């Protein structure tokens, strides 16, 4: 028996999946740029308050001083507070709520979706009915009700956003689990005696991750938008500054000082845009169907 002759260059070095995904991600210029921008925004949110220590609640000057004058780069708001300080301090709230709500969303969504897709039958039936129930609830209204009834603290706001946003993640996870559980390597692990928990967490979940990761990245963006909407309506912790709240509290004065609304809006827009571009990049990098193109 002759050994098959293999050309050196026909067997490319097997790469770790993350290395491969990163090299795909790097090809997407706008995603890399967006990731850089996002890193910058995160650093600004963490270290900004120390580098620019003006108190966002302090009235530092006359109200409605336009940007660039009197030494205030972004001007002052209707109470004469420094808009730049407010934007910097607001970043922390937006990012923190965005991240923690997304984590909660992913946790609930993956748990529900995994159980439904793995066990099927009555478990799936019940869980999917619950999912549909949450899809029927008008998301923003329900969150408004929760925050209004139980108080506008940061954990409550995070909970109110997370509890209405997980359905998309659950659906994606379920369909991935349904597909993967029938594959041969899962059958093989099952035959070799792996427990259900091990199959779910150790075998199926890692292979179901790519679409879940992409969806989670997008969830951060929509949670930030969601928080902005709530705080725009005044449903926010009055002791912290957030971008939506700056817009909400200044919107009566748009005729005199449009910038007090435009600038925080730009901050939200750029942050969410960066997240969605990174999400697109992740989608390209993690979706094997697209790799051939």
């Amino acid at each position, binding site marked *: 028996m002759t050994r098959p002759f293999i050309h050196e260059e026909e067997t490319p070095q097997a790469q770790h999946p993350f290395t491969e995904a990163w090299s795909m991600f790097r090809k997407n210029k706008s995603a890399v740029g967006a990731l850089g921008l996002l890193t910058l925004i995160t650093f600004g949110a963490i270290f900004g308050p120390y580098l620019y220590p003006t108190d966002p609640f302090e009235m530092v000057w006359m109200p409605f001083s336009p940007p660039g004058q009197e030494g205030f780069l972004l001007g002052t708001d209707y109470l004469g507070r420094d808009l730049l300080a407010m934007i910097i301090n607001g970043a922390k709230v937006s990012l923190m709520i965005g991240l923690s709500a997304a984590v909660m969303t992913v946790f609930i969504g993956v748990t529900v979706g995994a159980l439904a897709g793995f066990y099927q039958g009555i478990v799936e039936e019940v869980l999917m009915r619950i999912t*549909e*129930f949450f*899809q*029927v*609830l*008008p*998301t*923003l*209204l*329900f969150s*408004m*009700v*929760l925050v*209004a*009834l*139980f108080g506008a603290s940061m954990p409550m706001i995070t909970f109110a956003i997370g509890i209405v946003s997980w359905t998309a993640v659950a659906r994606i996870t379920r369909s991935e689990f349904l597909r993967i559980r029938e594959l041969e390597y899962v059958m093989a692990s099952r035959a070799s005696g792996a427990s259900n928990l091990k199959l779910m967490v150790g075998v199926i979940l890692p292979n179901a991750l790519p679409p879940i990761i992409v969806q989670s990245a997008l969830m951060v*963006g929509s949670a930030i*938008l969601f928080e*902005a*909407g709530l705080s*725009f*309506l*005044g*449903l926010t912790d009055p002791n912290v500054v957030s971008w*939506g709240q700056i*817009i909400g509290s200044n*919107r009566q004065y*748009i*005729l005199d000082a*449009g910038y007090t*609304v*435009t600038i925080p*809006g730009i901050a*939200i*827009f750029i942050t*969410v*845009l960066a997240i*969605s*571009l990174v999400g697109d990049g992740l989608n390209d990098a993690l979706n094997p169907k697209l790799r051939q193109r």
Partner: protein
Amino acid sequence: MGILRIIFIRVVYAIALLLAVIVLNFSLMHMAPGDVADTISQSMGGADQEILDEIRVSYGLDQPFIVQLGRYISNVVQFNLGYSFFYNQPVTKLILERLPATLLLVITAQIAALLIGVVLGVISARKPNGLSNYVVTFLALFGYSAPVFWTGILLLITFSLNVHWFPVAGMRDVTIEGGFWVHFIDVSRHLFLPAVTLGSIFLALYSRLSRASMMEVLGSDYVRTAKAKGLSENQVVYKHALKNALSPVITLAGLQFSAVLSGAVLVEAVFSWPGLGTLAFQSIIARDTPTILGILFFSALVVIIGNLLTDLALRLVDPRVGGNK
């Protein structure tokens, strides 16, 4: 399975969902700090414990949870959602007065977004490197990333405050007199900016999906056959391909009712549109729990009916859908 039977099952299912919403509503009211007696005593300017207890008995608040729940359900089924002490009106009347304005806004925005979205999608699917493709990509990014209330305020600043093309707020000008068409034009002018704002979120979604869906359909065998038969390009696209490309778009549009209502809350707040969103906003500031929960119930009702209608519409457009469900 006959279509009637399918409709029947869907309706039963919708009723079950609605019941779940009612139970949720009731539990929320139960868990929230303060009850009707507190609200009434507040509006009276305070009351002692005896009167509070009396009010609780007269409202049945001393009964066990399950009895109260049963009573609440039977009330809601008769569209009795309680009384708003803030507005001094039954909640149902309050909501029904505001519902048409919200429906007008939501339906206009949805239809406009769907029509424009599908047209853009089809154009850019036919010319993958054309200008319309950049438009779709730009719209998709903007529609996803810009907070809708901010878009609304920017439009308001630009087109109402700076160039005065559109009115600043509200739904109609009370000083205007005239026949139907005068009022029609007046409401349309008020409606334009809110509808554009609300539509902008969904335009992105629809144009992107119809582009993807159309591209897929255009590559399929039966389209090639239709072309081989010698049909013109337009006939192939609009008579054969579009119908099949539409069904995922309609499915998606049907899933958006809850999102559209959420968007409407914010858009109404920006443009002072006299709908449910504005009412919700005001009653939350006033801590008017019966009205807030009533709005939640009616919005869920709108979403459920919307889903039901989408489901049926889909069956009409696409006979392949759910024959054996």
